[in-house]
């Protein structure tokens, strides 16, 4: 907790912007967490990854918010666009597209989107990305709680085979679907145990 107080003081002195301080706090925490955790093994044949990153969720799950917060922390330029389209992708010189799988709508009624429209939107986005040399990461970062129903399944099964790199929460892979798909499609794959793992993974896989 000592680190937090130091960061607090720095914030009050008005030096780093608030968000940087906040993210540094998580970084400090991640380092502590990482010390005890096993290393997340990096696979061979990783695509060359760079920012800026466009993040979108196929099914409006909140996973993109986690990834955006992590990107800010490790100083990777990233935009989270709930309804990113082919036009959004063209609006900036994005080098990487991250598509988050799993859906919202868990017991809280409709988020006002049809899953079939979401899948169509993201499939077109991935197609355009690949055509323009933008690398595609498909990520399931919330584990078992975001793989509970048919809509999660549709989101996952439509996006996962399209990836240049898979990032998968271990708890989502209990049936081995992600391992099997990665092997069949020869997609490099990284597993995480918690979202904070991304804080140490991203600097290793993205070059500045």
């Amino acid at each position: 907790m000592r680190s937090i107080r130091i960061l607090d003081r720095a914030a009050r002195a008005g030096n780093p912007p608030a968000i940087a301080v906040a993210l540094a706090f998580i970084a400090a925490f991640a380092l502590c967490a990482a010390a005890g955790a096993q290393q997340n093994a990096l696979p061979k044949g990783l695509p060359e990854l760079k920012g800026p990153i466009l993040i979108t969720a196929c099914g409006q799950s909140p996973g993109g918010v986690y990834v955006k917060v992590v990107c800010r922390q490790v100083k990777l330029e990233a935009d989270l666009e709930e309804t990113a389209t082919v036009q959004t992708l063209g609006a900036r010189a994005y080098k990487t597209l991250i598509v988050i799988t799993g859906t919202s709508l868990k017991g809280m009624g409709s988020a006002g989107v049809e899953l079939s429209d979401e899948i169509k939107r993201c499939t077109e986005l991935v197609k355009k990305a690949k055509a323009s040399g933008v690398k595609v990461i498909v990520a399931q970062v919330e584990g078992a709680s975001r793989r509970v129903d048919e809509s999660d399944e549709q989101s996952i099964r439509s996006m996962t085979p399209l990836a240049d790199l898979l990032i998968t929460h271990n708890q989502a892979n209990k049936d081995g679907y992600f391992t099997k798909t990665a092997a069949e499609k020869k997609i490099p794959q990284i597993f995480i145990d918690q979202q904070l793992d991304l804080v140490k993974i991203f600097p290793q896989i993205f070059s500045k």
Partner: protein
Amino acid sequence: MKKSEQGKTLIAAKAAGLVAWAAVMVFAGVAFRQHRAWKEPVVLGPGVTAVRSLHEWFAPLKGTENDCNVYVLDSGLPGSTILVLGGTHPEEPATNLAAELLVENAKPTSGKLLVAIHTNRSASTVTRPGEAYPQFYSIKTAWGQKKYRMGDRSANPLDSWPDPETYVHYPSGQMLAYMDIRNINRTWPGRPNGLLCERTSYGFMQMIRKEKVDLVIDYHEAELEYPVIGTIVAHQKAQEVAAMVSMDLSASQFRIGMEVSPRTLHGLTHREIGDFSDATALLFESPEPFLDRVRGATNEALLLTGVDEFVQRAGKAGLLYWPIDEKGWPIEVRVGRHIATTSKVFEVWNLLYPEKPIAVDGLPGYGDLAAKGVGAYFADPASVAKDRVAFE
């Protein structure tokens, strides 16, 4: 048997039936009355600077069952103002207990806390006899048992009746189930001339605007059969706070997820408070096996220990959205999750908004609370001056 004798027997039988019915009505009436009239003492902790009433922000609530206490814990120093709502659904006891724990223990050192223990007080004066809910539950403390009213999800029909055929939410026009007009987490942002819960939400919205509240935290509990559980639901204005809290707590203390409030689902705190005021809103859900449909005996023990073999069996069959084992989900763990999440929100809030800090001393950590129990943080009302006790 002669005709007149038959008539006499019939009259006697009817009279006996009437007496039996009257006895049951008196017995039930006394029980309902005792429950509705029971007052829960709250010892005002070192941080409490005033106890106000909701009607001070919206006068027509004066004298209604929902003119609840609003505890003010003002550090006297600038910072954020944060409103905590307990008892939105009084059948979720970790919510009012966590709010009460704040009132008895929290001491802000910058910014201000406002706390409602029974946000929908009317709903805490009725329970669900048809589902065998206990009327009361007690928390063990070093100085004796502290007794609480077990409540329902919706306001007492004695205070809000009749329900409409269809409840049309104001102002969205969304159609909701008729009884949801008594569920205060479907009546935000409320309206001044609506039914009781709509007026109550409106009163809180007036308070949020006048007191310039920055963040509202709404405590809840959920059944393990329900997918929105063990999570923080955030208005989009607070989604990064929620993500950071969720990541940090999940890595360090306990698993807690995050959901962003759907934009098209109306009447809920995490949608309407964010949309209709400058404040943003977070809602926390902890696991309460007592609410599961597959539960066994519905009693005080289940309410407080969260141990139930049928819910466990449902878990083994893969029917639940949240884990459960023979340890259940005891009340101190559920309250502990709410308090620890609240503390973490404050921490993250200060890092994101250092110009408007909220700093609060006196709150127990998750481990301490789970080990010592909730009662360890409640003072004996008999041990303090009378003006330091309020009643719920």
